[in-house]
């Protein structure tokens, strides 16, 4: 049985990647996934060796053969994405808003619209000292990030099965929309990283609702604590109301970003190594 755990936050910059990288280094064996495919930062903190890479074709996009087009305009009428332009010569063409639905190809009476493969990123399988990392780079500005995440998560399950590894740890993207949903579906547990601020609290509330709708239990790490005890108390109450359990705290400490700039993890700071060791024990009691 493969166990999947996702590190999420709602708010960006809360500390997901820092915490995930430290946990990954402590685990004896693991398959890791960087779910933040359009700002993929986990590889920056890990020692890895790329084993394979492949282009990612999420969707075909429409292409109009201008030669056989009779300029009837049915394609532009049906398109829900304003992806079909009409130039001054009266020629129709497909712009980069195309989401690949093929509605235009279906309605075209001349059958002059074809669906052609479109690359939207690169997927990588890398070797870690203690396992494997699935990661990806979405081409900046591309659509289909959620699909790309689903694709590398599927690959992670295949790798875990093949190598008889029973743990997948996912470094999630910020937010609570398509990419977050794509990272969350089917996981057994979430570690929510909550930045101790009004913004962090607000985004945690949204994340908690999302997790509740998927019936995924969660543990909470409070990050950047200790500046405002009153807010800290309020956050504790909200976490309890949302069924979370606070399992770790990391204070606001300017040494942490300095250490990250040296590409170190929290394990390299003697003050925080025990915090991560305890957290690891809580998340993975038998590892």
């Amino acid at each position, binding site marked *: 049985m493969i166990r999947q755990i996702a590190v999420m936050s709602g708010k960006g910059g809360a500390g997901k990647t820092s915490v995930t990288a430290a946990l990954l280094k402590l685990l004896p064996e693991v398959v890791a996934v960087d779910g933040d495919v359009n700002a993929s930062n986990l590889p920056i903190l890990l020692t890895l060796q790329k084993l394979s890479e492949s282009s990612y074709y999420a969707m075909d996009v429409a292409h109009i053969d201008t030669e056989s087009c009779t300029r009837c305009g049915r394609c532009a009428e049906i398109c829900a994405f304003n992806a079909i332009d009409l130039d001054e010569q009266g020629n129709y063409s497909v712009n980069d808003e195309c989401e690949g639905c093929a509605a235009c190809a279906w309605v075209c009476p001349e059958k002059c619209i074809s669906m052609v493969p479109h690359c939207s990123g690169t997927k990588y399988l890398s070797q870690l000292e203690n396992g494997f990392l699935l990661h990806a780079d979405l081409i*900046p500005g*591309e659509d289909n*990030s959620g699909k790309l995440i689903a694709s590398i998560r599927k690959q992670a399950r295949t790798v875990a099965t093949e190598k008889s590894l029973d743990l997948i740890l996912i470094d999630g993207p910020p937010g609570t*929309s398509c990419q977050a949903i794509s990272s969350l579906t089917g996981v057994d547990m979430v570690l929510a990283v909550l930045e101790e601020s009004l913004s962090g609290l607000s985004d945690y509330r*949204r994340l908690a609702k999302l997790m509740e709708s998927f019936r995924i239990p969660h543990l909470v790490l409070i990050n950047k604590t200790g*500046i405002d005890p009153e807010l800290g108390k309020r956050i504790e109450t909200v976490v309890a109301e949302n069924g979370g359990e606070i399992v770790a705290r990391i204070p606001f400490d300017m040494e942490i970003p300095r250490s990250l700039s040296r590409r170190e993890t929290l394990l390299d700071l003697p003050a925080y190594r025990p915090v991560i060791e305890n957290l690891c024990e809580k998340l993975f009691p038998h590892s």
Partner: protein
Amino acid sequence: MIISVVSGKGGAGKTTIATSLAHIFQADYYDLDVDAPNGEYFLQPENETIRAVSQQQPEINESLCSACGVCTKECRFNALYKVANHIYLTETLCHSCNLCREVCPEGAISYKQASIGKVRTGHSGKTGARTIIGDLDIGSTRGTALIQDIVQRIDSPGTVVIDGPPGNSCAAVAAIKPADLVVLVAEPTPFGIHDMLQTLDILKDLQKSVVIIANKSQGDEQLTSVLAERGLKLAASIPLKTEHHKALLNGEILSQSDQQICRLLQQAVAAEIDKP
């Protein structure tokens, strides 16, 4: 004049800078980080009115549907599936593309309005200017559609500040497209520099002029040299300070609590606004 504030990396300080710019220029503030909107904690909107935003979604008329399965075969998003002579829709996968309606031989599929979120419009208790907050329904995957809906309706006569979403996918592009000027907030760390470079690729493609501001800085050497390779430079740098963090976590606007930063940001952005 529309200014979009973006960063690539989350937590770099988009909202910090965007709310400060809204304060400095008395600008209308649009929160387009629709699945994690936080600007309201700083600007404190009052007297908000709410507009519901919906999108067309397929609805299957059971009495007409023969469960032939053509729609499930043709849908390129795998949003429709057939179980035991019934067709079901997975709303989170649907792109509202009209194809299933077209292909259905029984005419059993029509489109109905389904909620994706709301837009709250008010006035900031702190700046007096308007606040327009995009608020995506939790569990909805239509963040980009909500952003586009709000962008199409931008009607502010004066300066507009857009607080964009993190990342470099379609949602970020939707928040960048309407901009006359992009303010790129970069955290001078390996993460921040990596994600900023991807955003710069998008800005180059879209031919947007950009002002780059370093935030949470404990030294800008690496960032400056990466920018220099691309013929760019930093317009301002805001240091990492415990006092700033303390002000922010309680919802203070940075340019209101720190006069020096107010001047710094004003100079960095005003120079670009005044350009013809």
